[in-house]
C-alpha cells in the first residue's frame, strides 16, 4: 500500500490533492514528535502523516533537555543524542528549536551556544509557565534580555507559547494562566525592546479575536494558531488585522490532528500567494538567514 495515496479522491470532496498541498510548500513550525517520549518511534510514525499530507519540513520545538514530566530544560538525555542524529540525517526535512528557561539566562545562553551557534538548531522556545520555567518568569521580564540579544546575534527565531486562558474567580480573560505564562501583552513588551528580532506569538495567544490588536503595532511579531481549536473565519480575521505576511503555520502533531491545523487555513478566503505565505513562506523568510549560516540554502 502506498501511504501517500488516498482511497478516495480529495477533489471529489472539495479538498486539495496531495500534489496541491506539496505545491503550497507547507512548513510546520510547531512539531511535537519528540515530546513525552524517550525514543524516536513517535517521531517516525508522525512523519508518515507529514509525508502523506505533503508537508515539506517540520520544526521540532522540543530539542535539547528532558521533555518528559517533570521537564528539565538543562538536563540532556540519551534521547538528545538521537534527536541530534535525526536533525543531521534529515536536514531537508526536520529542523529544531531549543527550549530555554528565563529563570537561568546564563544556562540558556550556554545552551544556545551549543545547540544553535555550534549545532543544527535555528531558534528558541519559551514554554508554558508550568514547564521549563523554574522561577515562573514570563517573556517580558528583564531576565530575557541577554537571551534575546544572543538570539539577535545568531539570527535565531523566537517562539513563545502565549495564552490568554479564561478562568479564575472572578473570571477574567487571563484568569487561568499559570504563574510564569506569557500572554500576548508580554510578547508586546518584549518586542518593543527588541524590534529587530522575529518573535512568534504561539497558540493564537489563546484568543485570536483579542491577541492580534495587542501585537499589531510590533511588526517583528508573527502570529501562529497551532494547538488551539479550529474556528471558522479565524484566519480571515487575523489576516485582516495583521496582514498575510505576519502569520506562520504549525501542525502541533502528533497531539493534534494535521487536519485540524490545515483546516484553519483552507477555510480562509486567501489568494494562493497569501496561502503560501501563511503555510510556510513567512517562516522561511525569517529563518533563511540562520539556515544559510548553517550551509542550508532555503528557497523562500
Amino acid at each position, binding site marked *: 500500500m502506498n501511504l501517500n495515496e488516498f482511497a478516495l479522491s480529495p*477533489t471529489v470532496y472539495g479538498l486539495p490533492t496531495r500534489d*496541491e498541498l506539496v505545491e503550497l510548500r507547507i512548513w510546520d513550525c510547531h512539531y511535537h514528535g519528540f515530546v513525552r517520549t524517550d525514543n524516536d518511534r513517535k517521531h517516525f510514525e508522525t512523519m508518515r502523516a507529514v509525508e502523506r499530507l505533503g508537508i515539506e519540513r517540520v520544526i521540532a520545538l522540543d530539542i535539547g533537555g528532558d521533555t518528559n514530566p517533570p521537564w528539565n530544560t538543562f538536563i540532556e538525555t540519551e534521547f538528545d543524542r538521537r534527536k541530534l542524529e535525526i536533525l543531521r540525517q534529515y536536514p531537508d526535512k526536520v529542523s529544531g528549536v531549543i527550549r530555554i528557561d528565563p529563570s537561568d539566562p546564563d544556562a540558556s545562553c550556554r545552551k544556545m551556544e551549543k545547540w544553535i551557534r555550534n549545532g543544527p538548531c535555528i531558534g528558541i522556545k519559551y514554554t508554558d509557565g508550568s514547564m521549563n520555567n523554574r522561577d515562573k518568569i514570563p517573556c517580558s521580564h528583564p531576565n530575557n534580555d541577554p537571551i534575546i540579544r544572543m538570539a539577535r546575534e545568531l539570527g535565531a527565531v523566537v517562539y513563545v507559547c502565549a495564552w490568554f486562558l*479564561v*478562568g479564575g474567580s472572578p473570571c477574567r480573560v487571563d484568569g487561568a494562566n499559570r504563574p510564569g505564562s506569557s500572554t500576548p501583552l508580554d510578547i508586546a513588551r518584549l518586542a518593543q525592546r527588541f524590534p529587530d528580532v522575529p518573535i512568534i506569538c504561539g497558540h493564537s495567544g489563546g484568543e485570536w479575536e483579542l491577541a492580534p490588536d495587542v501585537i499589531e503595532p510590533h511588526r517583528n511579531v508573527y502570529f501562529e494558531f497551532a494547538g488551539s481549536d479550529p474556528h471558522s473565519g479565524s484566519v480571515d480575521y487575523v489576516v485582516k488585522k495583521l496582514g498575510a505576511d505576519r502569520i506562520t503555520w504549525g501542525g502541533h502533531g502528533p497531539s493534534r490532528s494535521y487536519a485540524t491545523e490545515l483546516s484553519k487555513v483552507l477555510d480562509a478566503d486567501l*489568494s494562493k500567494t497569501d496561502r503560501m505565505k501563511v503555510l510556510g513562506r513567512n517562516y522561511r523568510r525569517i529563518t533563511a538567514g540562520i539556515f544559510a549560516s548553517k550551509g542550508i540554502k532555503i528557497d523562500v
Partner: protein
Amino acid sequence: MKSIDRRTFLKATTLATAALSAPGTYGLAQVVQNRVPSTAASSGDPWIVDTNVNVLGWPFRHLKYGETGALVAKLKKHRVREAWAGTYEALFHKDIDGLNTRLVEECRRHGDGMLVPFGSVNLVWPTWEKRLQICHEVHRMPGVRIYPGYQPFDFDHPDFPRLLRAVAERNLILQISLQMEDPRVHHPVVQIGTRKSGLLLNLLREVPHAKIQLLHWGQDSTIRGRNFLPRLLAAANVFLDISNLEATEGLGRMFAGNHWEIEGKFPVERFLFGSLTPYFPLECAMLKLFESTLTREQMAAVMEGNAHRLRA
C-alpha cells in the same frame, strides 16, 4: 484499498493545476469553491452525512457560514448530502417549542431537504416530556440533541434516566453534545464546568437499545480516560462523531488500537461524520478522513453508511 490511478488523478486535477499556475491571485480557495464535487465524482463515490451541524446564530460571534444559505452551499460544495442540524438557540432559550419550530422552518427553507432538524429538550424546564413528544410526533424528527452544561443540568439530573427511556421507547436518536467550544476560550460569563460523564456508563447500560450519539466528546477527560470508552461502547448502543477527535492520524489510530492518548481498539461502525460546522471549519472533519490511511470501505462507513444505519 482502491487508489487513484494517474489518469484519473490528472483528469481530476487539471482545472486545479491550471488555476494554481495562473498569474494573479486566483488561489486554492477559488479552485475549491469552483469545483462541483458531484460532477467530478464517480457514481460509486460515497456522499457524506454530517451528523453535527448547527443553525440559527452562535451567541458569541458572527460565524463565517452562520447564515443557513451559506452553510448549505458550503456543505454541498464538499459533497455533504444530508446534515443533522441542531440549533444554537437551544443553549440558552427557554421557549423550546419556539426554537424547535424555528429550526424546522429553517431546515425547510434551505437545502431542499438536506437539513434534518434535531430539536432539543431541556430537562430543567418543566414539561420537557411534552417537548419531546412534539419533536417526535409533530415535527417527525429522527432524534433530539441536548447540551448538558449550557442547558443547566448534568447526567445526575433525576430526569435523565427518564429521558433515556423515553427516546428508547420512541426509537429516537439522542445526540449528547459534550462540548460546544474549548472552555479555555469561553466568554468569561460562561462557566459551565465539567460534565459528570463517568455516570454515562451505568446510565446507558440500563437502556442498551437506546440510540445514543456523543458529539464533540474528544476533549472530555473522563471519556478519553483509562479504558472508559471501550467499556461504554461495549455496554451500550453508543456512536461517536469525529468533530474533535484529535491526534495525528487519530481516526486510523482509533481503528487500529494505537491512538496516542485514548486506550482501546474501536470498530469503524461506531463512528459517524460530524463536523461542528459552522463553528469549526468543515474541512477539519473532512481532512481527518484523508489524514489517516483508511480503506475506501472505512471511509464510506464513516461518511454515510453508519449514519444511514443509525437512522434506519
